[in-house]
């Protein structure tokens, strides 16, 4: 294995291959930062060009875009409250609050370092224990997926500790919105009111952009602007976390890396679920959970480490079993097949040079993401100097085009607006937004796996009798109740 790893690195460090990695990282960061445009779209657009390149070089470019694109979404999430990718949604909660406190540099520095660590961790896992992790992933069936989703939801109690009723209501709203459209199992329409456009359901990206960005624009518009120009004399430089801060968040990073790698290895779960699960775990295990959402670096470190760790995790089922974990890995799988490569257990033996070149490429891409990420942050940060009267309308137009670009469907714009209005009122009356987003992400997973389990086993207790599912579900229930119990003890 060591020989293969060294061979992989030597291939990636050849001048042309290294240049391809650098280009992929730059494109990934830039595209990831644009709301509505994600790495999947860019990889799909570049796929025809990759056809003309040798397999290793073509795949290295795509892998670099994939790794860097996940990080790129955090830049606009932190600076403008618009997650560039769905996976950066959890970063908004504390990232943007840090920007409001004038600590955008610290938030961005934390994001880049934690993203790189997450990516590197998952690549090391990929190199060493990919087949073993793949076997674990195969043990997960519908009951386990339901339990994992429920575990993700259990974080509501931590996120909405001030008003549990509002938090649960917000989560139920999100879960309900996820049911709009065609029933996933029987194909009947639900709450579409005759509209063909709603048959495919409420898309996640317009909903999140509406809930975060449009909500913020309404909020800023409502504020009285005393000066004609709300000028800013911001000097934001990216600050990496100090040694003391790094020591403080180290445990959070490692846990998030583990969560991200494992969740990424589960087909269908993805970087977004990983980010929210790790954010929830960071809240739950923190000595100061009430500080999350007010602007602390732990709130940036957890989701960023997890979402980049999921990139390596997603490659585990792809390369070991030929099962794509999500839309991006599905495109990568198609490229592998077109190039005549067959993913599966034998790939590690028969195509070892290719496989270990990909591992080395991911490792190098996560490393070179740091200097380029720091550079591009300086570029994006200058946008904060733009007067609010120009900046917010411009952000609105970019959000509009980003939503429109998904399906060239105007209904996505109206969804964005409605969610923006909903988010505005929720913010005004202190309903937490995070549980709604969680409900939206996890709703489909919860429902499909719940109904599939009942169909397969016809026994609701199966969730507890299957060992993996039972352990996760009991942990989720305890995690849900723990903040209330802790709150009761604190009052006494």
């Amino acid at each position, binding site marked *: 294995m060591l020989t293969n790893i060294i061979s992989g690195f030597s291939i990636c460090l050849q001048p042309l291959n290294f240049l391809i990695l650098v280009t992929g990282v730059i494109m990934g960061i830039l595209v990831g930062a644009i709301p509505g445009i994600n790495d999947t779209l860019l990889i799909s657009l570049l796929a025809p060009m990759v056809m003309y390149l040798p397999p290793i070089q073509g795949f290295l470019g795509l892998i670099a875009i994939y790794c860097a694109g996940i990080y790129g979404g955090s830049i606009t999430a932190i600076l403008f409250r618009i997650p560039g990718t769905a996976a950066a949604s959890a970063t908004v909660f504390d990232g943007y609050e840090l920007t409001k406190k004038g600590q955008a540099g610290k938030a961005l520095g934390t994001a880049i370092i934690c993203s790189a660590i997450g990516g590197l961790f998952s690549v090391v896992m990929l190199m060493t224990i990919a087949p073993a992790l793949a076997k674990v992933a195969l043990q997960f069936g519908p009951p386990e997926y339901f339990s994992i989703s429920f575990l993700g939801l259990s974080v509501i109690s931590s996120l909405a500790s001030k008003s549990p009723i509002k938090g649960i209501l917000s989560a139920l709203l999100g879960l309900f919105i996820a049911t709009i459209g065609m*029933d996933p199992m029987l194909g009947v329409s639900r709450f579409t009111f005759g509209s063909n456009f709603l048959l495919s359901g409420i898309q996640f990206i317009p909903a999140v952009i509406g809930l975060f960005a449009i909500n913020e624009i309404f909020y800023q518009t409502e504020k009285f602007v005393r000066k004609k120009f709300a000028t800013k004399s911001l000097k934001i430089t990216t600050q990496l976390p100090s040694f003391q801060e790094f020591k403080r968040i180290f445990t959070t990073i490692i846990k998030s890396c583990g969560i991200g790698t494992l969740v990424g290895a589960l087909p269908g779960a993805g970087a977004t679920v990983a980010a929210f699960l790790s954010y929830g775990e960071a809240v739950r295990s923190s000595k100061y959970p009430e500080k999350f959402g007010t602007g602390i670096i732990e709130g940036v470190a957890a989701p960023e480490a997890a979402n980049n760790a999921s990139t390596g995790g997603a490659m585990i089922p792809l390369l070991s079993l030929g099962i794509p974990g999500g839309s991006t890995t599905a495109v990568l799988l198609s490229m592998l097949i077109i190039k005549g490569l067959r993913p599966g257990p034998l790939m590690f033996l028969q195509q070892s040079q290719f496989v270990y070149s990909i591992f080395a490429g991911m490792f190098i891409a996560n490393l070179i993401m740091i200097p380029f990420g720091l550079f591009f942050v300086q570029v994006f940060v200058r946008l904060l100097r733009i007067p609010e009267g120009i900046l917010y309308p411009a952000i609105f137009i970019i959000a509009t085009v980003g939503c429109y670009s998904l399906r060239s469907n105007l209904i996505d714009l109206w969804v964005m607006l409605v969610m923006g209005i909903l988010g505005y009122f929720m913010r005004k009356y202190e309903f937490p937004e995070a549980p709604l987003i969680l409900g939206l992400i996890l709703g489909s997973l919860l429902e499909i796996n*719940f109904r599939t389990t009942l169909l397969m086993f016809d026994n609701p207790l199966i969730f507890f009798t299957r060992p993996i599912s039972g352990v996760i579900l009991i942990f989720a229930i305890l995690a849900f109740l723990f903040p209330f119990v802790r709150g009761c003890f604190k009052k006494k």
Partner: protein
Amino acid sequence: MRGEQAFNITVFIVACFLFINSWTILKGIGQGMSPNIWPAILLGGIVILSGILIVKYWKNQHKVGSKIFKKISEEEINSKRLFFSLLLIIIYFSLFPYLGFIIASIFFLVGYMYLMGLQKKLIIYGASIFIVFIIVLLFNKILLIPLPRGFSIFRDISLIFY
């Protein structure tokens, strides 16, 4: 805050309506949970919780009394500005497919910048045109994302650029 109570009541009423509507969803043939059960459970929960919030708010109002002291803040809330911005957005989205991206967006940006308090015409019109130019370049030319061209003469104008 009466607004909060209005919000709770709105959520309650909409959830009740959707809950009743959920029972009209086609049941489907076959085993397993019917498609309407899961959303009905969620909507039932929303109805109950919003009902609790309504009652809680009403009880708190009676306890605290009707005097609510307004906090004097440095930032005054301008609800009229918000209302007009919402109106502008609705008009923009409605005209988006007919005027095309360039014309509709320039009008929108000019209107919104005036609403945000900018007064220098050169900056408003210049910034609007520049922003639209950058977006067309980035999204349409580089990323090959199709943008609406509009109809009739607006389509002809859009075709000059993309």
